[in-house]
């Protein structure tokens, strides 16, 4: 079931088209990534879906509510981590959470307290609940901002660049938390990122956007295959052997064999690399080739992504 559906979503700011005819859907319970370089229109897309910005053209529905006619209802059912943590630095972590919990409709104080405690403990911030946010590190602020986005148990969560500006260790910590979160909270997550490692690690499906346009949608494996091509087989020999290369080239399923200099590493393009590898190894051994290692190399998402972005820039 789709919880977010967009149709020809377009946003123009004067002459600039920030979002250009975006059509996509996000299924219930999945982590859907919007991947693209800076200025690709990811934040604007999230702002449109969170009813902070209205589209110039097109339509979108969030949990069945129309973004142009039912904005208050949509704001109630989504949680959002904005581009900046957007925390009140003179307030304590608990006061920040308490304000947003009540703003999102958690009227009962006991319920609020329980929920805030649950989240702050999950994010390892309960011990700092009475400290002003101004004293927090960047990573802690980001964790608190994510906790805030979840405080009202929203069925849909928008996370805009959750690891941006964080050091590698903090970024990994946030990624671990989001991964745990998608299981713990069972929310649908729309994740906006320009970091491939975020997309690769966290997303069930993702859409690559560039200059406001949809480039491609699919699972990580889909994208790798569609853009980067099939996986290849890499065989490392103890010593160069021309006979081996000719034998492998002669095999039925092999389409291409590339070698390095001095021809000890063979990169073999083959249909269904996994199932073809025993036959290839056997053929090499048969012509007295000495195999040091055999690996199946999958195309990296990074290569695929960069290729796509370059192509879309025309």
């Amino acid at each position: 079931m789709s919880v977010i559906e967009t149709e020809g979503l377009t946003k123009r700011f004067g002459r600039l088209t920030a979002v250009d005819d975006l059509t996509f859907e996000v299924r219930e319970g999945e982590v859907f990534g919007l991947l693209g370089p800076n200025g690709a229109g990811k934040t604007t897309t999230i702002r449109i879906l969170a009813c902070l910005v209205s589209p110039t053209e097109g339509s979108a529905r969030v949990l069945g509510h129309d973004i142009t006619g039912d904005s208050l209802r949509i704001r109630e059912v989504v949680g959002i981590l904005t581009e900046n943590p957007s925390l009140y630095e003179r307030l304590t972590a608990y006061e920040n959470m308490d304000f947003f919990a009540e703003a999102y409709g958690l009227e009962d104080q006991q319920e609020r307290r329980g929920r805030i405690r649950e989240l702050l403990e999950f994010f390892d911030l309960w011990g700092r609940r009475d400290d002003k946010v101004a004293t927090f590190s960047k990573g802690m602020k980001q964790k608190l901002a994510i906790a805030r986005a979840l405080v009202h148990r929203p069925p849909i969560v928008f996370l805009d660049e959750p690891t941006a500006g964080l050091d590698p260790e903090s970024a990994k910590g946030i990624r671990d938390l989001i991964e745990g979160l998608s299981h713990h909270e069972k929310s649908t997550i729309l994740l906006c990122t320009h970091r491939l490692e975020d997309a690769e690690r966290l997303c069930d499906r993702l859409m690559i956007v560039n200059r406001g346009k949809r480039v491609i949608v699919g699972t990580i494996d889909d994208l790798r295959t569609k853009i980067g091509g099939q996986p290849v087989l890499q065989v490392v020999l103890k010593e160069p052997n021309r006979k081996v290369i000719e034998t492998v080239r002669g095999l039925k399923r092999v389409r291409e064999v590339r070698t390095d200099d001095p021809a000890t590493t063979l990169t073999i393009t083959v249909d269904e690399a996994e199932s073809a590898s025993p036959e290839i190894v056997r053929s090499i051994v048969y012509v007295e080739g000495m195999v040091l290692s055999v690996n199946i190399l999958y195309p990296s998402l990074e290569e695929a992504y960069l290729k796509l972005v370059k192509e879309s820039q025309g």
Partner: protein
Amino acid sequence: MRFNKALLVFRKDWREVSRNWEVILPLAIVPLIFSIVLPLIVIIPSGAAESGSYESLTRSLPSTVQNELAIMTPQQVMLYITLLYFFAPFFLIIPLMASSVIASDSFAGEKERKTIEALLATPISDSELFLGKILVSFVPSIIVTVTSFLVYSVLVDVLSFTIFNGRLLLPNMIWIMMILGLAPTVALAGIGLAVIISAKVKGFREAQQISAALIVPILILIFGQASGAIVLGPMMVAGLIGGFAIIDLIVFQIGVKLFRREEILSRLA
């Protein structure tokens, strides 16, 4: 409109404001000047006063007051006119000055501190947000105004007690109408406009500079009263209360209508 949501915004903002000395200081200093310093510099050196300089204002006062003044000494006339009439409009400035920092900071400050987007993403409606932002400026400024008035009344009565042979000058009906009726309605209009400006501009300083112009009508009232062109009598004050109450409603409606989340986000610093 859910009033509890507006109160929620008010409580959150007040928590923030009360921890910021840059905001609290004007709240404390403005009333200190108007309620303590001004009466002291008027009453203490008033022995050699002449009532001649107040003739134009005296002539425009109601006949009952003129009769009262006729039997007073020059010192009594000078104090009576200055303390009860000349200073009265200054108490309309107190809520505007006291609230100017908070009102200018309301949306512009949130933009500068980059906290506005999460606030705008909440299911708090435009009118609830707007009212909450007005309340956080209005409530403290009115508390400050009423407190200043009480301090001013006590000080005036204590210092003028012997000069007026045991008569207490304050509070009187006009001052009560002014403090409890006119000051709040004037403050609401000024704060409403300041909050609208704050939502429209990019930063706090810009908001404060533009909002400073809101004091001009009150200055006209002060000079009008000093020259005798305007006298804040009961009818005049009642009329102004009614007029400003209507202006308050109009300002609120305009403020909500002009409130555009998208426009506010587009002006993020």
